[in-house]
């Protein structure tokens, strides 16, 4: 068993038994379902919108090299500097070099899951930079010393009282249970940090090839301050974030907001078009973009699962996933939680170590129905299982399935085996057998009938 699987099983077991926490997460998502459905109903045809959004991503992902080249040419024409990073190490080195060259001290960041993916904060802090997350949820998680719980709602699992205590401990503020007051505490703390920071690091929601612009969508305005106030703006983005046309955003931005947060549009939608230009009075002096591969090209090379690169990180698949809702986001041990994380993490970090996430699904398909860009999520979990069984077969699985096949390919043996199974079921239920033992811990089996269907049928239809 891989280490990551052992940790997953342990955490999932603890969390799945925590009824209070599970109820809290369900309640937290309750409002989302209502708002999402209200907003979806405002689309003339949500399903056609999904087609359009999927097509916009498909056409960019399936021509990625050309679309990226076009984007980069336009981005550079706008005055930005592009850096290509094959993996996390290269991306971290690039960002550290920019910081070093700029003689920077303080860095402010807005929400960027790609930076979580490459553990950027650790690297920056180790190099002696002060790094502060400016997204409220990420700020809270940073103070807690915990990874994001959900890649859109990073601290959805944290109760208000805990946030109040956290702020009291770290910021010395008076306890309060008012969400507005808690927000104001963070806001007051963060404002000066934007002014003091030498570098602002953001992510990117979309890279628009035809204009060379970066689209960032957010609800707090912190990304705008992060991008605009510090001397240097560094955006970090996966290469799959590129789209062909500015028009594509007319479907992708509202769908991201609706699927992700049940909003008609996110509050702030900004297109960044390079550094401060001659005659402009604000904006960064330097604008860098780090384009990260980090195994995305490996996914691109797999025609079966390539559509996983369509992901716009809305989190809709997490919000409807019964696994996520019952084990929570931290148990995954991944940057990207939920169904999309279970699909792509084996590609990003290795199938052998991370295939258990594809196994930990009832394949209910709620994720696939929720995905605004039509990623075939739950079927990809099956594809990962197949690939893993081929790549690193386990002896138990081989024996179990070939043994089962030996029986079911012989109807007489199946019938005889069934007869023995039914006759001994009361005994079998008491034995610590694999699978059966796990089932019997929380569930009963029906009382075995004296005759099977095939026996009954034979008797009734002679």
């Amino acid at each position, binding site marked *: 068993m891989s280490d990551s699987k052992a940790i997953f099983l342990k955490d999932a077991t603890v969390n799945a038994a925590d009824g209070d926490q599970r109820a809290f997460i369900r309640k937290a998502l309750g409002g989302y379902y209502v708002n999402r459905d209200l907003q979806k109903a405002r689309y003339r045809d949500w399903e056609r919108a999904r087609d359009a959004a999927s097509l916009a991503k498909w056409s960019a992902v399936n021509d990625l090299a050309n679309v990226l080249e076009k984007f980069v040419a336009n981005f550079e024409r706008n005055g930005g500097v592009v850096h290509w990073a094959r993996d996390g190490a290269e991306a971290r080195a690039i960002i550290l070099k920019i910081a070093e060259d700029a003689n920077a001290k303080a860095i402010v960041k807005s929400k960027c899951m790609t930076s979580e993916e490459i553990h950027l904060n650790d690297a920056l802090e180790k190099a002696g930079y002060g790094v502060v997350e400016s997204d409220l949820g990420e700020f809270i998680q940073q103070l807690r010393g915990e990874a994001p719980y959900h890649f859109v709602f990073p601290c959805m699992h944290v109760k208000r009282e805990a946030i109040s205590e956290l702020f009291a401990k770290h910021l010395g503020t008076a306890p309060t249970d008012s969400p507005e007051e808690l927000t104001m505490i963070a806001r007051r703390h963060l404002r000066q940090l934007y002014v003091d920071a030498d570098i602002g690091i953001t992510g990117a929601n979309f890279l628009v090839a035809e204009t060379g612009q970066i689209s960032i969508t957010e609800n707090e305005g912190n990304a705008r301050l992060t991008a605009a106030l510090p001397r240097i703006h560094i955006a970090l983005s996966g290469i799959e974030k590129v789209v062909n046309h500015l028009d594509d955003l007319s479907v992708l931005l509202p769908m991201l907001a609706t699927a992700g947060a049940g909003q008609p549009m996110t509050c702030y939608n900004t297109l960044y078009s390079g550094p401060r230009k001659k005659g402009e009075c604000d904006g960064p002096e330097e604008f860098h973009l780090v384009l990260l591969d980090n195994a995305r090209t490996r996914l691109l090379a797999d025609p079966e699962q390539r559509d996983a690169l369509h992901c716009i990180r809305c989190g809709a698949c997490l919000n409807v996933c019964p696994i996520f809702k019952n084990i929570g986001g931290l148990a995954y041990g991944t940057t990207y939680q939920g169904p999309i994380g279970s699909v792509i993490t084996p590609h990003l970090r290795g199938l052998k170590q991370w295939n258990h996430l594809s196994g930990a699904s009832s394949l209910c398909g709620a994720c696939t129905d929720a995905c605004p860009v039509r990623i075939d999520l739950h079927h990809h979990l099956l594809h990962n299982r197949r690939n893993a069984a081929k790549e690193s077969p386990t002896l138990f699985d081989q024996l179990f399935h070939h043994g089962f096949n030996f029986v*079911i390919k012989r109807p007489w043996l199946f019938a005889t085996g069934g007869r023995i199974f039914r006759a001994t079921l009361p005994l079998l239920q008491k034995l610590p057998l694999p699978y059966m033992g796990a089932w019997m811990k929380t569930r009963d089996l029906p009382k075995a009938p004296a005759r099977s*269907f095939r026996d009954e049928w034979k008797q009734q239809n002679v």
Partner: protein
Amino acid sequence: MRVSLFVPCFVDQLTPKVGLATAKVLKRLGHEVEFRSAQTCCGQPSFNSGQWDVAREAAIRALAVFRGAEVVVGPSGSCVAMMRQFYPELLKGTPHAAEADDLAARTFEFSEFLVKKLGVTDVGAKFAKKVTYHDGCHALRELRLKEEPRQLLRAVKGLELIESEEGESCCGFGGLFSAKFPMISTAMVQVKGGALARTGADFVVSSDPSCLLQIGGWLSREGKPILPLHIAEVLANDA
């Protein structure tokens, strides 16, 4: 019409009354029903476990078993989804591909067959009980069946249909998932089973006997006063 029954392996061994009820309803509607005893398991446990070579063998055997059948009808959204959706995927690019597509087109889930293929909603059943309906995920999302079983239930004399919270939530069965990740599977059935029990219905009815195994197993263990029942058993009841 001559209907060839596709009886899931665990129905054959554990809940034969579901298969018998399916046959009873079809016969009552005037159809000829056969059971080809060479059938065993559709191969889904192996398919879902990533053992596609093993599952492919099961698929090829099923093609032979049901060769020449006019229509194949199974009382399980999950097992029918295996034949309908996944056999063609498993056998794509093999000499069996065309036959897999052909079988997929002739195979129906029981409630789907009645409503969509035969155009029947009232099968002449009586059942004076309160029931709630559980959508199996394969029926709901692979076969896109939601209204069909409800149309059938609404036409049953005396039956009161109550919808539950968590209506489209998975029961947590997922085949071997329920035993490989029992803690997650149990948490899921607590949510689902709890919502079903809160409806106050006498029975939870589903077109999927595998979900009923999970839901019924948990309800029984928890001592909840609501019993699992397959839709074919409801429709077979005419007394």
